[in-house]
């Protein structure tokens, strides 16, 4: 065990997997000598050399497409997109190619790539350094999508993603990089894909979320218990695709009241699907309408501080929504 930041856990996962399997390599912009714009790959080039920690030309479709080709050969590429906002030029490679390679070849070929991309705002990144694009890829069968909240999960999920035979999008939250700091085992473990995690047991309301907003949910839950005696049951989806339906339904049945929280905008977000699953499967277990707290339906987050603050979720916004649900 060692206390480390979320970003260190991601780096450690890559280091361990590269030591374990020589077919694992990293490619992306500035990942080599600079060690990534966030330092996620810092030092890895010294250990593994410039071929396995490869600085690529600035062209995201090639980063994804070359990774896909190498993966079909038998390599295990980790393609880094500097910001998830810049991932869209690679969307055709990810959705038309990576996601469909196993299916279209009738199981003859497979595509074991990991695409890592930082999501989320609150860093004065403006419209194009703040986005949460998971809904663009969500609903594309053939892709797995992971979005860890904790440092422990970040390490374990990334290791599982690297060892997965299918393409995995790994959305790491850039606000979590330094904010989340906790004990992480230094030994080899994985957190399986497709399995949600109960962060907190409670009886009054259920909160379902993923990635950074869970930080606010947990803070709000603690305060609510102390201040008002309301106990919240908090479920971290961890894997967005495939969703852990059983865990979602179990957590809803526990309290009968559910709030879904995410930073991606509300319309067409992951929360819409989670809500639909709940409606289809356990409508009569509900004691209140399903509620969602998400970012507003505007194209992306503005940089001006009051606007960014307005856009971002906060502990207080989450707490208010939780009280509203508890009182329903």
């Amino acid at each position, binding site marked *: 065990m060692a206390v480390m930041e979320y970003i260190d856990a991601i780096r450690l996962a890559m280091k361990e997997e590269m030591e374990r399997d020589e077919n694992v390599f990293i490619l992306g912009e500035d990942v080599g000598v600079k060690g990534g714009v966030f330092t996620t790959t810092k030092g890895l080039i010294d250990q593994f050399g410039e071929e396995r920690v490869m600085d690529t030309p600035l*062209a995201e479709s090639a980063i994804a*497409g070359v990774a896909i080709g190498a993966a079909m050969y038998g390599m295990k590429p980790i393609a880094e997109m500097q910001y998830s906002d810049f991932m869209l030029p690679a969307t055709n*490679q990810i959705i038309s190619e990576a996601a469909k390679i196993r299916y279209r070849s009738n199981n*003859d070929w497979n595509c074991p790539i990991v695409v890592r991309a930082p999501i989320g705002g609150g860093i004065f990144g403006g419209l194009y350094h703040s986005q949460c694009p998971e809904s663009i890829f969500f609903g594309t069968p*053939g892709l797995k999508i992971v979005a860890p909240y904790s440092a422990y999960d970040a390490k374990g999920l990334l290791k599982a993603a690297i060892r*997965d035979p299918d393409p995995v999008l790994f959305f790491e939250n850039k606000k979590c990089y330094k904010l989340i700091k906790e004990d992480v085992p230094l030994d080899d473990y994985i957190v399986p894909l497709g399995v949600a995690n109960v962060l907190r047991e409670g009886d009054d309301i259920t909160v379902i979320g993923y990635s950074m907003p869970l930080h606010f949910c947990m803070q709000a839950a603690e305060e609510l218990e102390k201040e008002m005696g309301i106990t919240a049951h908090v479920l971290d989806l961890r894997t967005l695709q495939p969703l852990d339906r059983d865990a979602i339904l179990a957590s809803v049945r526990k309290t009968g009241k559910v709030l879904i929280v995410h930073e991606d905008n509300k319309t067409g977000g992951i929360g819409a699907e989670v809500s639909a699953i709940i409606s289809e499967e356990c409508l009569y277990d509900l004691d209140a309408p399903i509620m969602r707290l998400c970012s507003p339906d505007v194209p992306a987050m503005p940089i001006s501080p009051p606007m960014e603050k307005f856009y971002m979720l906060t502990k207080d916004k989450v707490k208010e929504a939780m009280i509203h649900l508890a009182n329903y």
Partner: protein
Amino acid sequence: MNKEVPAMNDKENTKLKNQHEQLGLSDGQVIDMYRYMLLARKFDERNLLLQRAGKINFHVSGVGQETAQVAAAFALDREKDYFLPYYRDYGFVLAVGMTPRELMLSAFAKAEDPNSGGRQMPGHFGSKRLRIVTGSSPVTTQVPHAVGFALAAKMKKQDFVSFVTFGEGSSNQGDFHEGCNFAGVHKLPVIIMCENNQYAISVPIHKQISGKISDRALGYGFPGIQVDGNDALEVYRVVKEARERAIRGEGPTLIEAMMYRLSPHSTSDNDLAYRTQEEVDENWKKDGVARMKSYLISLGIWDEAKDADLVVQLNMEIKEATDYADHAPFPKPEDTLLHVYASAEEEKSWQ
């Protein structure tokens, strides 16, 4: 003798003979090349008929492009190299080992189709056994994939190359440029061959490209070569040289093979809406398959009787393939749900 081939004096005759010998090709190999070209031509013609007869849904033709396709395949290592063909490459995939039966199973969308189990349109080739990498319909996405295979060759110190094809219209896609640039920067063993057939569906070359496709290689720091795609031996020579360069670690080569799409874009296209019959007829005179036949006959290693025999043989092979595919079972409807992700067992074996 074919009347179109002029009588030649001894000197020219000798020069003709040397055309394939000096490339290291035996008489048997060039006859074999011709056989694959003609097989692809006959296969294509049969598919057009089958579509018109309502037996199959769709066909994208490669008529007029077989020469360069087959010649390129012969210049590669068909035991080692990785191939990323595009949807007109019937001649290519036949020459690297896919059988007419396998292709017909795809045309009929039957369960046994090795390309996709009846999931994809015909012309979307793929076979791990033959190292034909599965392809899609959005054009040119395969160029970065080929570069990825070449990157793997370099990283794993393997002596194979990747070979990728696409049309001239596709060479305007970002993936072409991004792939070329990546391959150039890392000096990767990839051969990038554009089959310039003059048309992107209905849009002619002068509305697609203002320069020369082969010149684009200059910007990426590797050689770009334009070659007559109807000249099998020239295509063979440039692909072989490109492969030798790649294996020596000297990086990629862009080849622009000039040809003409003699058939409509697909069975859903009326090409005479945008080009004239005269233009098409003019290009039939340059057909590389007929040219190869004339070459073989002029050397005295082939004749009309042998050719007639070969046509009968190929037609029989295609008929057998058609009958087999026609009678083969469709996939089970519920198999639609299979192979979205790895099976639980496969997943476990990777962990």
